[in-house]
């Protein structure tokens, strides 16, 4: 929202306070001023009203003429002028030597001095609107600005009259809880409190114009529901003539970004921005000549064309003003085009009302229409300002009209509703104040701050103070903590001293699991990615949670797996010429328990579980470019490289790999014969931790590459539950013995089943088993070489003892898998 420094100064004396100082104080004590900008060019006087008394041709030039201008009762100036729209007896702005106006060619400052133009003396300049920095609607482009008011006194200082002063605009976004400052008067009230200056009231005393009052109209107002509209007032004005908006009003409206339309509309907008009260004016002659005004909810199927020239279908959420049964405006939002004010409007009905905030909000939402007016009603207008504002508008209209229009008349104010508001008192304990802020503020300071803000003290003792809340703060002040804030900000947040926290009472536990896996993954050469947890339908599963109001189709479902995000990031980078892509993400996935329906869910529960997941993707090699040509890529390397990394992660998390099995799996996006589910087995339970695999060849075709892509995803919450730290085992000094055995078996027999068949026998001297070789002598036979380590912690093992164990293993494997042992 924009505030004019010049306008604010109407209500609080800002002399000696620069716009920048004002902005800074406001920022530290009330509202952030985001920017201070200037409005209008810097014009310097003397610029006066002068009357053209003669126009002669220039002896040496065709397009310029010699004028003589009277600038007071006696003094005349000879001025050369190139404009064609001037005539004798016109009153025009005259820039005298020493003044500075605007160069209309490049907007640079144009100093005026005595000069000779083609041999003729010129002692000043007759000015156009653009040379004075004012916008006009009479577009005599480049022509001299003709002052229409024939009563203007020659020699009048036009800097003041035309409001040619440069203005400063403060950009402030007042907070949602402070509707009282959505106006210049309201903001000035805040400034007055901060600077401890008196607040000047806007002129509203229409009794000054009582001779123009006449009972020419009798209006009848009815309100269907007082909750929608607690107060409604109207006033009639007749015999208006088409007058220009006074330059002060126009200038100020334009300065804060409001377009000037016509005198009456400009006045209603001016009052809105000055008093914070939205106003509306109807062209009375365009109404049905009915005295009956009704504030009611719209009927279904009712329509109105609003002044933005759009036909709007109304419904019962819309409050309307009806005249003779017909809607003439949407209450608090926008008027109807039929009764819109025009330049030729002669008779006007002015409306000032108080509409319920929620009602206007709902109405505005249902129409998808908001306005300066609705924004203020939605935040809540100050009830007692309704009539003041009507009087203010009336005052301004009369004040600017009577000089040129002695026939203007206004009616009495017709009103329905109650303006009285219940005010409340609040008490504040001085001890609570000091404890909350951590500084002791003396009671006199507290009282003075509250007074400045308009709180009147009702009662006071050494422990607490009771105050009455001013009417304009009823919306945001209600309890003692609200007073604490008021006192703190006027005292100055930056004047409150720092106070150390007394103790460090938390010593962090172990590194959390996320930090640990991230450290590991980065160490293995993976790059961490953060992907959107909102994913498009095409990457989602049909059980994923749907967002009802997505920002776009790309963010419509809540992910239940990190894989879609990984693949998307992979594709993004593959398209950018990366050859080796190693990615991981450690983040949450979300699963909805479908047995919980919205009817069985209590209002504090969601039925959603949030699971910490780890997923990784590897594509290509994580080695640097290998100029030694050592590696031989086989198609299986990708899978086993990733599996090895996952095994290391699990080991680093203290998971016993001997309890993990790699079982068959049927993930649709993974290679059907190159994927596994990762299962934790101990005697009491089987827990699925995740899955690993190569991407399905049919998906890989899209990547147009021969390199393999492998992925895994594991549930870290499940893993965390399995972490088991073994106690220390003493180190045996007896030697260990390695023996290699080579087994030929059918290819369908898995390494895992052979390994488990051996391990499950719990041979007590067998301490380790490792696969050290694999080859395939024929298509359906594979040959596996295992290195078995034997140790007896109490003595050196005899060869015979080892032979016995190996014989047991052999018999066991032959029985189970019909294998053959080489060399035995």
């Amino acid at each position, binding site marked *: 929202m924009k505030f004019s420094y010049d306008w604010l100064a109407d209500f609080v004396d800002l002399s000696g306070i620069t716009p920048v100082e004002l902005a800074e104080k406001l920022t530290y004590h009330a509202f952030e001023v985001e920017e201070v900008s200037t409005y209008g060019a810097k014009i310097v006087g003397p610029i006066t009203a002068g009357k053209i008394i003669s126009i002669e041709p220039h002896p040496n030039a065709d397009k310029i003429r010699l004028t003589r201008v009277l600038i007071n009762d006696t003094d005349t100036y000879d001025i050369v002028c190139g404009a064609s729209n001037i005539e004798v007896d016109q009153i025009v702005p005259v820039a005298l030597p020493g003044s500075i106006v605007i160069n209309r060619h490049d907007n640079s400052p144009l100093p005026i001095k005595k000069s000779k133009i083609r041999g003729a003396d010129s002692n000043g300049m007759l000015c156009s609107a653009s040379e004075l920095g004012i916008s006009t609607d009479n577009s005599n482009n480049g022509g001299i600005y003709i002052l229409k008011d024939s009563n203007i006194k020659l020699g009048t200082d036009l800097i003041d009259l035309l409001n040619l002063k440069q203005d400063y605009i403060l950009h402030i976004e007042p907070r949602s809880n402070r509707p009282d400052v959505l106006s210049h008067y309201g903001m000035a009230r805040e400034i007055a409190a901060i600077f401890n200056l008196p607040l000047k009231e806007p002129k509203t005393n229409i009794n000054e114009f009582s001779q123009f009052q006449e009972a020419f109209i009798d209006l009848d107002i009815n309100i269907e529901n007082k909750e929608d509209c607690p107060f409604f007032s109207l006033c009639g004005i007749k015999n208006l003539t088409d007058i220009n908006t006074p330059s002060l009003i126009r200038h100020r409206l334009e300065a804060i970004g409001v377009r000037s339309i016509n005198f009456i509309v400009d006045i209603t907008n001016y009052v809105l921005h000055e008093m914070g009260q939205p106003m509306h004016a109807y062209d009375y002659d365009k109404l049905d000549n009915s005295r009956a005004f009704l504030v009611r909810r719209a009927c279904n199927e009712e329509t109105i064309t609003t002044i933005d020239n759009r036909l709007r279908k109304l419904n019962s959420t819309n409050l309307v003003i009806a005249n003779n049964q017909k809607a003439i405006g949407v209450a608090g939002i926008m008027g109807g085009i039929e009764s819109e004010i025009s330049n030729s409007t002669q008779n006007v009905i002015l409306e000032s009302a108080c509409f319920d905030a929620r009602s206007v909000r709902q109405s505005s939402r249902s129409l998808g229409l908001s306005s300066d007016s609705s924004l203020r009603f939605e935040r809540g207008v100050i009830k007692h300002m309704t009539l003041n504002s009507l009087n203010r508008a009336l005052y301004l209209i009369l004040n600017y009209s009577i000089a040129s229009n002695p026939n203007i008349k206004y009616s009495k104010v017709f009103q329905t509703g109650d303006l009285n508001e219940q005010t409340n008192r609040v008490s504040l304990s001085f001890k609570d104040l000091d404890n909350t802020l951590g500084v002791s503020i003396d009671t006199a300071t507290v009282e003075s701050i509250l007074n400045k803000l308009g709180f009147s003290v009702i009662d006071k003792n050494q422990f607490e103070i009771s105050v009455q809340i001013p009417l304009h703060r009823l919306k945001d002040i209600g309890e003692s903590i609200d007073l604490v804030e008021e006192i703190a900000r006027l005292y100055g947040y930056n004047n409150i001293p720092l106070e150390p926290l007394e103790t460090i009472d*938390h010593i962090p536990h172990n590194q959390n699991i996320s930090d640990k896996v991230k450290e590991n993954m980065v160490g293995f050469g993976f790059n961490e990615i953060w992907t959107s947890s909102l994913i498009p339908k095409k990457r989602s599963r049909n059980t994923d949670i749907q967002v009802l109001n997505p920002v776009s189709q790309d963010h419509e479902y809540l992910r239940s797996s990190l894989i879609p995000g990984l693949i998307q990031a992979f594709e993004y980078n593959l398209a950018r010429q990366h050859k080796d892509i190693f990615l991981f993400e450690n983040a949450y996935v979300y699963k909805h328990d479908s047995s919980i329906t919205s009817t069985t869910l209590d209002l504090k529960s969601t039925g959603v579980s*949030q699971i910490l997941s780890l997923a990784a993707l590897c594509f290509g090699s994580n080695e640097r470019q290998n100029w030694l040509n050592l590696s031989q890529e086989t198609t299986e390397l990708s899978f086993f490289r990733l599996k090895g990394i996952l095994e290391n992660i699990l080991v680093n998390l203290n998971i016993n790999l001997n309890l993990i099995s790699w079982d068959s799996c049927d993930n649709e996006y993974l290679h059907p014969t190159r994927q596994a589910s990762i299962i934790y087995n101990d005697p009491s339970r089987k827990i699925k931790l995740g899955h690993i695999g190569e991407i399905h060849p049919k998906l890989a075709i899209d990547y147009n590459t021969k390199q393999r892509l492998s992925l895994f995803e594991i549930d870290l919450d499940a893993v965390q539950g399995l972490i088991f730290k073994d106690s220390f085992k003493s180190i045996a000094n007896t030697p260990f013995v390695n023996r290699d055995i080579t087994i030929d078996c059918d290819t369908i027999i898995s390494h895992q089943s052979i390994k488990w068949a051996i391990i499950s026998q719990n041979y007590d001297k067998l301490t380790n088993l490792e696969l050290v070789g694999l080859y395939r002598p024929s298509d359906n036979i594979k040959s596996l070489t295992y290195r078995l380590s034997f140790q007896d912690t109490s003595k050196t093992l005899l060869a015979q003892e080892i032979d016995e164990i190996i014989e047991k293993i052999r018999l066991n494997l032959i029985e189970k898998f019909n294998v053959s042992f080489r060399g035995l």
Partner: protein
Amino acid sequence: MTDQEISTQLQSIKKEALTALSHCDTLDLLENWKQAYLSRKSKFNDILKNLGKIGDVDTKKTIGELANTIKDELLKTFDEACTTLNAKFLNEQIQKEAIDVSLPGISYKPGHYHPLSQICQNIAQIFSSLGFEQVFGPEVETNYYNFDALNIDADHPARDEQDTFYTSIAPHVLLRSQTSTVQIRSMEKTRPPLKIISIGRVYRNEEINARKYPIFHQVEGLYVNSKVSFGQLKWTLQKFINAFFERDLKIRLRPDFFPFTEPSAEVDCECPFCDTKGCKTCGHKGWLEILGCGMVHPNVLKNVGENYQGYSGFAFGMGVERLAMIKYGIYDIRYFYNNDLRFIGQF
């Protein structure tokens, strides 16, 4: 044989041996030489064996001494030859094995943390050292935790569908729009005093542009105890800002409004990149807007129940992306979610 003959013979063997030794250019030849001239079966030894037959003691002694001298000399020369040859071979091997040490090392390509991870870890660490315990909360939330319990009334604009994502699960189930939900959840779980920090993902229905993304991350801090003050809040934030930017920076507070705190403030710190002179990072303001904070609103404490009666607290919240953008000079929030390796590789 006369002793003179023996002596001459010895001298000639010596000469022969030395000549032969000088031709030995492999370790095998050296070994053969040793066998030929110094072993038990060598000529030299044959002569020494015959010394016993010499009757004259003096002659025996003279010849013996001569033989020993020659033997020692041959041994010494042999050892020298061995040393020289070994040195030569080692040198040859060394020369042969020369590598271009400037060739690239062979290892894994380094992985990289996402910048937001680093910022989150950094923040968690700083607050941990100030005694704040890290806690986590759900992102799929209810109206109650996201709004009601936080003193955000039904008419507050933030509750509008235009700002918050609602889900298909139930009308009251939404994606949290702020991490302040964790305040309530933690207070419900734990008796005071409470000193927590929570870093997590939040969601807002906003069009994507350089400054806004529908998901982002916040840090939420909460301290509740029997007598907590605004001055302590200022102290805590001052410590955090100094630690985060690794410099002592002035802070300043401006009044602001949040439904769940009162008094509420917005905190700026001096721009560490331009010493308040104004630069691109601070939008030429000289100050950086860092976070929002305030004293926990009494209604919030009331909402969590009896355990918190008579307690007071402070809370603060800040945007992780914003802090990362400031710290690294990143000007477009979308970089964080594109996951371009050319971006991540820089951190």
